[in-house]
């Protein structure tokens, strides 16, 4: 017997396990692996901890410790030196390879997308049996159907090999935990490494149940970023399937204009409920934005902007920025306001960086800045942005008071589609 035996999940499911005396004990129905990752590259999370065994018509979970898997002449043998039943809790903390992984969609963390599992590759070492990788290739598919060997033989005549595709166990995240009672936030821990827009793409591709449960496992900051990136349909589904309190908490972490856009899609009762649940300050901003019609500048402006007094020095402004640590979009364009919140000028990060620390902002700002009115049509934005090469345009009302700004990120899709339609004409 070699010290390393590799085999596939499909090869062991349904196999009979034999006792040390050579008698058949029971049929292997499933394998259990720890569902809660204790850390990256920790071999403990790959260890097979339990086995679902069917003995005389009764199915129970037993510890996999006394089990050994060996291979002799391509035949897999499973031997067992004793049966130790697992506690409910131990089972609940585990992930079932057949029930939760095989044939299911999982997240490929490196490829940042959903893949379907055709098989799982396992290895027995002196230290135990481990889940090594998931098989997502055509070979795994053919092996499961039981026609891999003959097809390979035929293709080998033509010197063609079937490509095998594996993803290491460390680089996958299971999604379907519907049968388990484990803490979800912990079991989805690996997903936090993904960029919000990748996560959003994955959520959109998932079924409704899974997308809601994955989303609810995210912390509020991440959840807010992901919700922003989702398509409208998916946003509405997520918001409607989570508790109001949780959604309100996430909304508070989002820019008011994004929240207003989502609320616009909901039924009035639901929107009102969410607004009431949110903190007064955040909900007030959203309410103001909701007043605007869909095709007006006000409806897509953000109220998260930075404004300073002209008498501030460059030094003071920089210090405040370090303290506030604003989002990068807020730094695209910063504003100077005078009496009654009237817009007096704009300046950007470059202006700050290249100026002496003791200079007054009023001396470096561009006065008479380009701006939009909040009740102007959104169609005016594209022209302004491309004409003046602006990343963010201040929005004022008819009293010249600063109301917010339109960020290019929010309109770029519209700009692209507008150019396309113009080209087609």
């Amino acid at each position, binding site marked *: 017997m070699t010290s390393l035996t590799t085999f596939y999940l499909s090869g062991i499911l349904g196999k009979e396990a034999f006792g040390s005396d050579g008698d058949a004990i029971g049929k292997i129905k499933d394998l259990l692996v720890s569902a809660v990752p204790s850390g990256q590259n920790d071999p403990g999370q790959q260890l097979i901890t339990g086995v679902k065994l069917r003995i005389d018509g009764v199915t129970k979970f037993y510890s996999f410790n006394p089990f050994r898997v060996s291979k002799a002449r391509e035949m897999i043998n499973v031997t067992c030196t004793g049966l130790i039943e697992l506690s409910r809790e131990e089972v609940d903390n585990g992930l079932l390879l057949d029930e939760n992984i095989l*044939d299911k969609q999982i997240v490929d963390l490196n490829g940042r997308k959903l*893949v379907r599992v055709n098989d799982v590759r396992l290895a027995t070492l002196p230290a135990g049996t481990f889940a090594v990788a998931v098989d997502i290739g055509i070979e795994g598919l053919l092996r499961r159907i039981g026609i891999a060997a003959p097809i390979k033989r035929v293709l080998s005549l033509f010197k063609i090999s079937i490509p095998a595709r594996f993803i290491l166990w460390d680089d996958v995240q299971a999604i379907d935990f519907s049968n388990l009672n484990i803490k979800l936030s912990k079991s989805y821990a690996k997903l936090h490494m993904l960029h919000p827009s990748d996560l959003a793409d994955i959520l959109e591709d998932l079924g409704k149940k899974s997308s809601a449960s994955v989303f609810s496992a995210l912390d509020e900051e991440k959840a807010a970023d992901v919700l922003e990136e*989702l398509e409208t349909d998916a946003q509405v589904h997520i918001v409607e399937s989570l508790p109001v309190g949780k959604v309100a908490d996430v909304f508070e972490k989002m820019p008011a204009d994004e929240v207003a856009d989502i609320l616009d899609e909901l039924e009035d009762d639901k929107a009102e409920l969410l607004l009431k649940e949110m903190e007064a300050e955040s909900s007030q901003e959203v309410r103001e934005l909701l007043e605007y019609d869909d*095709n007006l500048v006000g409806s897509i402006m953000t109220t998260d902007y930075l404004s300073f007094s002209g008498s501030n020095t460059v030094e003071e402004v920089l210090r405040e920025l370090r303290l506030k640590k604003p989002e990068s979009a807020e730094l695209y364009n910063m504003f100077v306001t005078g009496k009654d919140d009237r817009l007096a000028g704009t300046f950007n990060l470059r202006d700050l960086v290249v100026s002496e620390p003791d200079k007054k902002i009023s001396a470096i700002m561009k006065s008479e800045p380009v701006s939009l009115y909040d009740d102007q049509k959104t169609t005016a934005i594209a022209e302004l942005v491309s004409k003046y090469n602006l990343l963010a345009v201040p929005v004022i009302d008819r009293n010249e008071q600063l109301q917010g700004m339109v960020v290019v990120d929010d309109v770029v899709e519209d700009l692209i589609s507008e150019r396309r339609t113009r080209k087609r004409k």
Partner: protein
Amino acid sequence: MAGLKIGIHRRNIFRRLGIFLMILGPGIITGSVDNDAGGITTYSVAGALYGYGLIWTLIPSFIVLVVIQEMNARMGIVTGKGLADLIRENAGIKITFLIFIGLLFSGIGNTTTEFAGVAGSMEVFGVSKYISVPIVAILVWVLVVKGTYKIAERIFLIFSISLLTYVVSAIMGKPDWESIGSAIIHPRMELSTRSMTMVIALVGTTIAPWMQFYMQSSVIEKGLKMKNFKYTMADIIVGCIITVVVAFFIMVACASTLHPNGIVINEAKDAALALKPLAGNLASQVFAFGLFIASIFSATILPLATAFFVCEAFGFEAGLDKKWDEAREFYILYTGILVISAIIILLPNAPLIQISIWSQVINGILLPVVLISMMILINNTKIMGTHVNGRATNIIGWSAVVVLVGLSAALLILPVLRL
């Protein structure tokens, strides 16, 4: 952020064109694709062969069609998952493999039938199939891969109103409404292999297995919701009515002209040609034009849908928004189905009738398998929650399964009994 803006735009258009887009729902598109070249052929042959005798089959077909599509819509809305996904996750890999190999072959067979429709209808206008088929195949491929598929779908849908030309064809044939009525009220079926085959073919072409997958995916793509289900239901019913009404008039057109004169036809093209001396040149050309549009419409959607569902089931990347390198299996499958089907048609002496019969046999076997999978899935509370089937739906669904299995079994046994 980005998607959201597009979403709002879409909603704006949606509000403005409200009624227009509401009519163009998934049910209506599915219902229109259903009247493809294979369908037109089967209805024509049935009408020519049995007169008004088999028109009654449209009524049970209609009921089963509505019930099945309602289940698909419900599954799509509740789970947000395609039927292929659900079958793969719950039925195991071997059944999945069988279903999708079957679906792939019937996809190729059906697409071949669509190209036969293109070839046949253009021949009525005097265009050789060696010109029409390659042009249409390339046109369809470019249309779909160059990303204007959604627009194409809309255009075809408007064109498919031309299917109503069959009403014109039918009326020009001066049908005997009284005997149509009595044929529907007193349904009859002779116990012969030939008429059994015809009935299975009629049901099989009206309730094609791939449509179930198509319906469920379109519902998900449209982002429909359970609280608006009555609109979805209306859309499904209208779609099914379109299917059945068009089928009815095709059968009437052939039954009132070809049947009394004892003209036997094998292809839809034959029907168009045979109409010429009996109902006039215009009726013949109108019939051929309807066939042409229906064939291109289905030749656009069928290979695409088939490639998509096979990829979905086996976990390959799929979708027109993916590049060739990202979704190689998908593009190879899609292109392969189109190319193989077009080549089969262009082969001199291609056994078209056999291909069309075989793809309907595959459909006939596949349909109960898909239906049984659906019935099991939709009654699973783990998947459907509170939206599992009600009793009435279950009774109709399972009866349909029993009848279809019975018909297929009878078809296999009858020749043995009459040795």
